[in-house]
C-alpha cells in the first residue's frame, strides 16, 4: 500500500517536472518562464522528497526529507524574487502580448529604489530625472 502511494506521488512529481521543463522550453519571455521553473519545478522536486518520506521506514530519513522539502519551499520564492527583479532591472524583453507593466517608470534612474516607496524621498542618492517621458506618463 505504501509502495502504491509512493508510486503515485512519484508519478505526480515527475509529471510536474516534465511540465516545468516544457514550460521552460516553450514559454515566450523570462517572466513567464520563471512561473514554470519556480513553481512547477519546486513542486516536482518537493513531491519526490515527499515520496522518500513516505517510502522510507525510518524516522531519521523521513525527518531529513521533510527538512529538505521545507528548505526548498522557503528558498524558492526568495530566489525567484531576486531573479525577477534582476531580470527586470537588466531590461529583459517582455512578451509582445504583455498588456500590463505596473513597474514601468517606477524605478529611479539608478535602479535601486521604487518611486513611491516611503523612503524614496529621503535623499539617499539621486532621484530619477523628472523631465524624462517614462516616469511622468505613469499614474502614481
Amino acid at each position, binding site marked *: 500500500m505504501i*509502495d502504491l502511494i509512493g508510486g503515485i506521488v512519484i508519478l505526480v*512529481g515527475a509529471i510536474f517536472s516534465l511540465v516545468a*521543463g516544457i514550460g521552460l522550453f516553450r514559454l515566450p519571455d523570462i517572466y513567464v518562464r520563471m512561473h514554470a521553473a519556480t513553481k512547477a519545478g519546486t513542486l516536482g522536486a518537493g513531491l519526490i522528497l515527499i515520496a522518500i518520506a513516505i517510502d522510507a521506514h525510518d524516522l531519521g530519513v523521513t525527518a531529513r526529507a521533510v527538512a529538505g522539502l521545507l528548505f526548498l519551499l522557503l528558498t524558492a520564492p526568495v530566489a525567484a524574487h531576486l*531573479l525577477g527583479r534582476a531580470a527586470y532591472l537588466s531590461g529583459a524583453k517582455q512578451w509582445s502580448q504583455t498588456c500590463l507593466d505596473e513597474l514601468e*517608470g517606477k524605478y529611479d534612474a539608478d*535602479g535601486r529604489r521604487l518611486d513611491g516607496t516611503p523612503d524614496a524621498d529621503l535623499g539617499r542618492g539621486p532621484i530619477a530625472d523628472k523631465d524624462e517621458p517614462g516616469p511622468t506618463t505613469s499614474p502614481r
Partner: protein
Amino acid sequence: MAEFGAHFLDLAILFAYGAMIVSFALSVYRLLKGPSPADRVVALDMLALLGIGFIGLFSISTGEYAFLDVAIALALVGFLATVAFARYVYRGALAERRESPATEAGDES
C-alpha cells in the same frame, strides 16, 4: 497487493526517470540558447531542482537513503548559486544604467 505495489513503484520510478531526462534536456536547451543571462540563470535553477529530483529517485530505487543528504546539500548550493547569479545580473544592470542613464527599464516591449 504488495507485489502489485512494488511493480507499480518500479514503473513509476522508470517513468519519472524518463520524464526528468526530457525535462533536463529542455532546460539545457534553455541554458544554451536563452537570450538573456537571466534566462540562463533560471535554467540553472531548474537544473539544480532536477538534480534534487534525480537524487531522490535514485535513493528511492536503490534504498540508499544516504544520498538524501546530497540532495539537501544540492538544494543549498543551488539556492546560493541562484542568489549569487541574480546579484551578478543585477550588478551588471546597475553598471549599464550608470554608463547610459537615458535607458529606462520599462521602455522596451
